[in-house]
Each structure stands twice: as structure tokens, then as C-alpha cells.
């Protein structure tokens, strides 16, 4: 596992939002952290390469871009689990898929460019797998904004 030192932690904790939009934003961000621009760029490059950061940049709001998102769950018999995972994952619109410990043991996020495509996609997955898909679209979002302490 990649290691982090005190400065890496400071960077991750300080820069989970609020990165400036200005001609030299890394210089400005580096100043608030108390390091040089070059050091910040080198460290960010390494943190991304080592996988401690998934990426560095804007996080977009899918629905506001005109797309649709939903969370869906299935109860998959253990002996068919791998086969069904492959069928589900084969759809480009499946953004994440997690195995979870529950009677409903497969949970995936569907992201489509058009809201109408969600129902079609769910019907397709039900037809392919012969299993019921429970659609759980969000009705209200209370907060998204966890800041991970590094």
C-alpha cells in the first residue's frame, strides 16, 4: 500500500473542494498549504498515480447535466452470482456495482443520458437475468459531502 507523509495528508485534507478558478490555481492552493507550486504538483501527480486519489478536478452533478441516476438492487441466487454480475456489468450504463451481505445481494447504480432510458434498461436486465430488479431512485438528497480525513 502506498504511504503518505504529513504534507500529503495536509494536501488531501485541505483540497477536497474549493480549488480556485484563476490563471495559476496550483500556486494559490500551494500557498495556503505552505508549500511551493512545484511540490504541490509533484505530490498530486504521485498521489493520483499511487491511487490514493481517484482523480483531481471537478466533480459533476449528473442530474444537472441532464442525465438520470438510480440505485437498483437484486436478489441473486449464490450459484448464479458471477454469471449475473457479468450480465449486469455488460451494460455501459452500470456505473458501480457492489456485492453486499443481504438477501438483496447485488446493488448497482445506473447512469443514463436520458431519464426515460432507466426503465428500459431495468426491463432489459430483468429479461436477461430472469430476476426482479428493485428500482430505488432518490426522492430527495440530504447531503453529499463527506470529507475523508487522510
Amino acid at each position, binding site marked *: *500500500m502506498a504511504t503518505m507523509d504529513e504534507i500529503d495528508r495536509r494536501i*488531501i485534507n485541505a*483540497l*477536497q*473542494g*474549493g*480549488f480556485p*478558478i*484563476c*490563471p*495559476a*490555481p496550483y*500556486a494559490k492552493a500551494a500557498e495556503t498549504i505552505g508549500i511551493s507550486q512545484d511540490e504541490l504538483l509533484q505530490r*498530486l*501527480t504521485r*498521489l*493520483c498515480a*499511487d491511487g*490514493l*486519489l*481517484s482523480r*483531481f*478536478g*471537478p*466533480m*459533476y*452533478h*449528473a442530474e*444537472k*447535466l*441532464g442525465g438520470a441516476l438510480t*440505485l437498483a438492487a437484486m436478489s441473486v441466487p449464490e450459484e448464479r452470482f458471477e454469471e449475473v*454480475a457479468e450480465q*449486469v*456489468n455488460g451494460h455501459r450504463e*452500470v*456505473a*458501480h*456495482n*457492489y*456485492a453486499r*451481505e*443481504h438477501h*438483496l445481494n*447485488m446493488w*448497482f447504480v445506473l447512469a443514463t*443520458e436520458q431519464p426515460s432510458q432507466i426503465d428500459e434498461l431495468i426491463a432489459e436486465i430483468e429479461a436477461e437475468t430472469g430476476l426482479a430488479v*428493485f428500482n*430505488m431512485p*432518490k*426522492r*430527495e*438528497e*440530504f*447531503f*453529499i*459531502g*463527506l470529507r*475523508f480525513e*487522510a
Partner: protein
Amino acid sequence: MKPPDDIDRRIIVATQAGLPLVPEPYRALADELGLAVEDVMARMQAMLDGGLIRRIGAVPNHYALGYRANGMTVWDVPDDAIAELGKMVGALDFVSHCYHRPRHLPHWPYNLFAMVHGRDRDEVSEKTAHIAELMGVKERGHQILYSQRILKKTGMRFTA
């Protein structure tokens, strides 16, 4: 806020995997797209102000940072209390997402979802007990669905 136009969409596609890690990233982006740097910065600022961009910065890989356990906690709460409870739970610093979602009776009675992260399962379970305590008598039942395995994680990708 108006929906993104074609130029906005080109900026979105060019930045969804990250900003260039160079001293002048917006200029690098502008050069790549054949736009003026002032235009790129103004459009990104407008998307940030309008909420199309939730935030700009480091997106940590929580698993690599040591948050190995993730429990999707699901709660059955009265519909008329969900706004109040959702706001309370969503504000907790260990909850990453908090949503109201539909029940599927009789299979699924839960209408409030809160993703809880911890270094191990004990930590997730302690944090969940803390949520239950905060909810008090309004909570009618809950479960923790621990993730066992990531089967796919490509994230969302938009095309221009």
C-alpha cells in the same frame, strides 16, 4: 441555471477524468479545446455557481486511505419525519451520502439510506448505533448492508 451547451459539454468531457496537473491548467484546457482561457474559466465558474460542478479538488480513494469498511445503512422512518431526520443524518461527518428512496413493500421497508464509512466493521457499527440513538423513537428499524466486493466501478462518463 441553463443546461450545458455544446462548449460546456466539451469542457465537461475534457475534465471529468481530472484537471491537467500543470501550473496553468485552465490555459492547457483552453488550448486543447481551441477556446480562450477566459471563456473556460468563466464557464467553469458558472457551472460551479449553478451546481453543475459540485466541487473542484481532490477526490480521495477512501479504500486506499484506510476506510476499508463501508456500510450502506438503511432506515425505516415515518414519511413525515424523513426531511428532519435526513438533514440530521446527512450532516454527520462520517456519512457520505444520505437519500430518501422509495420502499418496496413487503420486501423492503426502508426509505432512508445513509452511507457510513469506517476503518473496520466495528467502527461502522458504532457509528450506526450513534445514528440510531440520534433518531430515537422515530426509528422503526434499520439494517447495515456491508459491501463484500466491488463488482464494477467505472463511474459516470459523459460523451459530448
